[in-house]
C-alpha cells in the first residue's frame, strides 16, 4: 500500500469510526451489518467522500459494496482519484 493509499484509508477509518461510534472498527467490518447506522448515513457517507477527497459520486457508484467497510470505501475513493 502506498503512503497515499494509507492516508486515504486512515481518513476514512477516522470518519467511519466516529460515525458508528466505535473506536476499534475493523477495516473489513461490514458497517451496515453493525446495525448502528442512521437513516441519514447513506447520504452522509456520499457527502463525506465528496468533500474530503474532491470526488463526485455518480449514479453508477451507488452500490452497497462500495460503501460497506473502511476498506471498500478507501478502495472506492482510490479508484475515483485514479
Amino acid at each position, binding site marked *: 500500500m502506498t503512503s497515499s493509499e494509507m492516508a486515504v484509508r486512515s481518513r476514512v477509518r477516522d470518519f467511519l469510526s466516529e460515525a458508528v461510534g466505535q473506536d476499534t472498527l475493523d477495516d473489513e467490518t461490514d458497517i451496515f451489518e453493525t446495525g448502528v447506522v442512521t437513516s441519514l448515513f447513506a*447520504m452522509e457517507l456520499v457527502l463525506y467522500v465528496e*468533500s474530503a477527497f474532491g470526488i463526485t459520486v455518480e449514479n453508477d457508484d451507488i452500490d452497497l459494496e462500495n460503501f460497506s467497510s473502511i476498506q471498500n470505501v478507501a478502495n472506492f475513493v482510490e479508484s475515483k482519484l485514479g
Partner: protein
Amino acid sequence: MDDFRTFADEVVAPRAAGMDLAGRLDESVVRALAEQQWMGACITSEHGGTPLPPLQLGALCEELGRVCSATRSLLTVHSMAAVAIERWGTRDQRDRLLPTMARGSAITAFALTEPGVGSDASAVESTLRTEGADVIVSGSKRWVTAGLRADWLLVIARAEKGPTAVLVPTDARGLSLTPVELPLGLRGASLAHVEMEGVRVPADSVVGKPGAGVSHVASTALDHGRFTVAWGCVGMARGCLEASADHAGQRSQYGELLGSRQLVRSTLGMMATDVCLARHQCEEAARLRTSKSPAALIETVRAKYAAARIVERVAADAVQLHGSAGCASGHVVERHYRDAKVMQIIEGTQGLLSLTLGEHALRRSRPANASAASAQ
C-alpha cells in the same frame, strides 16, 4: 431580502386566506414566483436556474412562510424534486426537465407517503415493474403537496431492486388525483391523494439507480425539504410575533393597552427569543450547506426539529394573545396555528427527527454508547 419581504406582503399575503379557504394555490401566485425566477432558485444556471445560496434561499422561505405556508410549500416540493433530479438524474433528464422547472412552466411535486407508509419510507408498497422499454407504476400516494397543481410527480415505488424513484406526468393514463378535503393545515397547498393503476412511462423516467430511491434520491430531496420547511417555520413564528406585537400595541382592555401588561410583555419576550433561537439554528444549517460540510445533514435535521417545535408554541401564544380574534378564519395567526402542527409531521416527524438527533448525540459522545444507540 427586502424584495422577498415586499413580494410576500404585496403578492402573497393578500391571497393567503383565500387560498386556505379554497384549498388551492392561487395561479397568480404561482406565476409571480416564476416571474421572479424563484422556481429555479434551487436549479443550477447550467440548467436555466437562478440559484440562491442557502442563506438567501432561507430568507425567501422565511418571508413566504411568514405570510403563507402553502406558497412556501409549493417552492419546497418543486425544488425538492429539482435537487433530486439535478443530483441523481441522467443528463437527458436534467436537460429535458430542469429548464422547464426553472421557468415554472412545469411544476413538480414529491410523492412518497402512502396509506400504509409514513415514517418508514423504505417500506413503500407502490410497485414499479419493467415491461419492454417502459416501466409500469401502480399504487397509492397520500398527502402530495401541490399534487393538484403539479405537471410531474417524483414517485418512490418498489422495483425488483428495492425503492426506486420515477418521474410520472400527472396527466398519464391510469393516474387520478383527489383533493384532500379540509386538512388540518396547509389547506391552500393543493394537496392531493394519488391513485396509479398501471401507469406506463418510458423506462428512462427512472431517476437514479434502481434500489436507491429512498437511500439517495428521496434522502436528497428530504434534506432539502427539511431546510426550507425549517426556514418557513421561522417565518411563521416571526409572523405570529409581529401580529401579536401589533395587536398588543393597539388593543386596550380595562383602559390600558395589552402591551402594558406584564404577562403580555413576558409572552412577547419569550416568543421573540424563540424566533431568534430558531433562526440561529437555521443559519447554522445554511452556513454548513454553503461550505458543503457533511455535518450539514444532521444540522438541517436539527434546524427543522427545533423550528417546528418552536413555531407550535409561538403560534399557540399568538392565538392566546389575540383572544377570539385569533380564532377567526382568515386571520394569519389562526392559519399559522393549524399549519404549525403540520410542520411537526412533514419532512420527518418530530419523533423520528428526535431519534435521529439522539442517536447522533450518543455516537459522537463515547464509543461505548454505540451499543446503547443500536438497542431498539
